[in-house]
């Protein structure tokens, strides 16, 4: 465990000396995260010829800096044009875009950046000190527990559906149905693929994301002049002072950023989980603990902070299984493993024995890369919000063209561009008829993950459904899930009942004697 402060200071200092590779990596990561379809994983693969040529330490630092920055970048289009750059930023659209529509884009961006940077920094520092403890999480959270963790995310559909429960649940169920397409996890039997080989691996997430959010949003945009209404449209860019003020104000939410980042970190450590699940769960839990849960979905700052902080907390978490056990916890970590293997660097426990400075150095580099992102925040907050004043005549075609390329990039299939258009039409119809596209997307993302964990748990138990209640941690999570679902309506009912009683008593009091 890294208790020696001088060692920590040495690692951090050494990481700072690699600023020259971190800054370009951050710049690339911010762009990659903001463009749907690229993301860290794909970008790192594209740049592998470069990273394999670099010294292993420099290569790892480059990759982690790019990875962290891409998680920050993903929130930008989610806030400004309702298009999440990555699955992890999908929940950011729920409150980020409504803030933009209300003319609060500068504030939303500031919240997003501060939550991302502070959340990522906190999780990296926690990991530096608690890596051995975190590496044990995977030993206790298995398929059963993962089912419940993912149900927390799925429960968000119920929150989204609060205004129109029937439509919300229909949208969520539709998403789950789409998520069930593809070859089944046990016997690889194709289901609902309509004979398309391209769908054997399930509905491709990026084209679905692009269609549901980007293309459908572009269609909606064309019905108006600009993203924000004339009355809310800023006439001039925000001043440096205003941008800085919003950034400093965002730091006041440090407590929510801290706990959602740690939640993201823990979820990131779990095999099979990731930024999407973390951000949905963090959003759902933030709403649960909020004093103003009714404001979520209407442009509430807490609704931006939660997913952004959590999905940046995940970045360090996904590296923990690779560093501590030697098994990559996600696709980005798998690509990093390639670089370690290429250079003949051992990973897992041997890495800590043979090259501990490299193991801890990677985490320290993550912390430093978040620190180096701070100067990026100020110009980004100031100038990026101007996107909202671009005429939709230019913006919408640009979005469609750009994101269709993004739909093509991850797998290289032209078919995926058709999927994006199909989902765009579904998204447009959903928006026009009052069905929430985020509820559909949650089903598409979480459906296959829950199914996989559920099937594994059932198969391990020889199809005994009681396996879902067979572990202490799982049972504790079940209780928390039930509480988080039951308490809000219960407290709301209790409050209404109290108000009614007061009114009645007041009424009696007012009666003339």
């Amino acid at each position, binding site marked *: 465990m890294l208790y020696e402060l001088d060692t920590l200071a040495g690692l951090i200092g050494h990481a700072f000396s690699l600023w020259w590779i971190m800054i370009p990596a951050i710049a690339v990561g911010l762009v990659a995260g903001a463009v749907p379809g690229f993301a860290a994983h*794909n970008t790192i*693969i*594209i*740049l*592998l*010829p470069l990273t*394999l*040529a670099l010294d292993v330490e420099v290569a790892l630092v480059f990759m982690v800096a790019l990875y962290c920055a891409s998680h920050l970048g993903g929130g930008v289009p989610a806030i400004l044009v309702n298009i999440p750059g990555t699955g992890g930023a999908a929940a950011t659209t729920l409150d980020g875009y409504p803030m933009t529509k209300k003319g609060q884009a500068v504030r939303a961006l500031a919240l997003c950046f501060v939550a991302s940077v502070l959340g990522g920094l906190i999780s990296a520092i926690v990991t530096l000190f608690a890596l051995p403890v975190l590496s044990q999480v*995977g*030993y206790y959270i*298995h*398929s059963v527990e993962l089912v419940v963790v993912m149900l927390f995310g799925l429960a968000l559909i119920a929150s989204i559906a609060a205004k129109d429960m029937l439509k919300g649940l229909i949208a969520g169920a539709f998403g789950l149905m789409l998520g069930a397409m*593809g*070859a089944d*996890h*046990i*016997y*690889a039997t*194709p289901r609902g693929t309509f004979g398309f*080989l391209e769908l*054997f*691996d*399930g509905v491709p997430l990026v084209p679905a994301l692009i269609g549901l959010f980007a293309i459908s949003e572009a269609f909606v945009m064309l019905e108006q002049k600009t993203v924000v209404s004339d009355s809310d449209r800023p006439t001039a860019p925000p001043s440096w002072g205003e941008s800085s003020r919003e950034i400093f104000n965002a730091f006041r939410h440090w407590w929510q950023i801290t706990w959602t980042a740690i939640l993201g970190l823990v979820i990131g450590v779990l*095999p*099979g989980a990731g930024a999407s699940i973390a951000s949905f769960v963090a959003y759902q839990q933030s709403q649960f603990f909020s004093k103003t849960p009714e404001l979520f979905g209407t442009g509430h700052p807490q609704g931006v902070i939660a997913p952004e902080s959590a999905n940046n907390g995940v970045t360090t978490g996904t590296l923990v*299984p690779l560093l501590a*056990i*030697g*098994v*990559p916890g996600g*696709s980005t*970590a*798998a*690509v990093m*493993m*390639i670089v370690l*293997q*290429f*250079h*003949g660097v*051992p990973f*897992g*426990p*041997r890495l800590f024995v043979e090259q501990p400075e490299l193991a801890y150095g990677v985490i320290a580099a993550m912390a430093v890369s978040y620190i180096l992102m701070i100067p990026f925040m100020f110009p980004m907050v100031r100038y990026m919000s101007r996107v909202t004043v671009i005429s939709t005549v230019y913006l919408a075609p640009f979005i469609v063209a750009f994101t269709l390329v993004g739909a*093509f*990039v*991850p*797998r*290289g299939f032209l078919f995926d561009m058709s999927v994006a258009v199909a989902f765009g039409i579904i998204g447009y119809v959903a928006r026009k008829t009052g069905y929430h596209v985020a509820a559909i997307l949650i089903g598409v993302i979480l459906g296959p993950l829950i199914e*996989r964990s559920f099937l*594994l748990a059932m*198969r*391990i138990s*020889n199809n005994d459904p009681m396996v879902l209640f067979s572990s202490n941690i799982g049972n504790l999570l079940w209780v928390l899930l039930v509480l988080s679902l039951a308490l809000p309506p219960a407290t709301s009912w209790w409050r209404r009942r109290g108000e009614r009683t007061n009114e009645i008593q007041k009424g009696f009091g007012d009666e003339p004697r």
Partner: protein
Amino acid sequence: MSVCTKMPYRKKLVAKTSCAAAMLLGALSLGISPSFAQDFPEGNISVTIPTGEGGGADRDARSFAQVWNKYLPRNVEFSYYPGAAGQVGYEFYMRGDASPSNLLFSNIGPEVIMLELQDVPVEIGEDIVYIQKTSTEPMAIWVGANSPFETLEQLIEEAKTRPVTISVSRLPHPATIGMLALGEATGAEFNLIPFGGGNPTAMAAITGEVDASALPLANPITFGEEARVLGIFADENPVPDQTNDAPTVNEVAGTDLPPLTSSRAWAVQADAIAENPELIEILKQTMRQTLEDPEYIEAVRASGVPAEFIDPGNQEEAMQEAAETRELAIQYRDLLTGE
């Protein structure tokens, strides 16, 4: 060490730009252009990997390609098509050109079983031919370092009293057949759990979600002290020093199971052989040179795989293995498909 051969791409669009840059790097760093390879068509060699990036096939293909570039100086462009136990990759590969520049890097064991069990319109021999093996490794039963099972005897005895959970990469796999055959021969009950890929399969065993795992032997070896090999499906242990002298399954269980191995191999479309036999010969020749190159042996070791697994088996041997694996799949079809 050459860089230009390490080009993993899904994205052909972007890949071409990166390829050009990497080619320049390679040309600058190597400057090698064997004369016989000049007859090979210019342009990139496209490699389809029917599993995900970061897996064993990816690792082995890269180790190979980095040295192969010395003998066949062409850029290698990787595409990954995981899904449906490799079916997606094979079908997409067949949609490509029947050209010597269009290769498949395969894992013969699991993929031949998959082709036999699933409804895939691809026939080994008629459509695809394995032209050169690169490595062969036996299947192994292993547990995580914290497992209570110290020996294979203990695991088998336990499996006679309750179903013992075994994580496997997928059901159509030689390791799965090994476990089913072992259960049949000893009366032990093994509950096979397909985790979909080597990494999650290994994770399940290391973290104790399952009792044990059955995977190709290179997997537990790369996990070092995190894994303990209990038994090997082979006539003898090829790497006793790296497996704590683990016994063979037959020695422990008193069974007579056939060796269960899987080989990585390069494959081409059968039409490519018919149309360009001389170019395929260049491929084979340069591949053999690569396999004999000490630099390749070092690259394999660096990636954590024992050099003992390197197997320069030719086309005949590779196709023979495919035929034998197909027979095994037919024999265990019912158990593997749950029908």
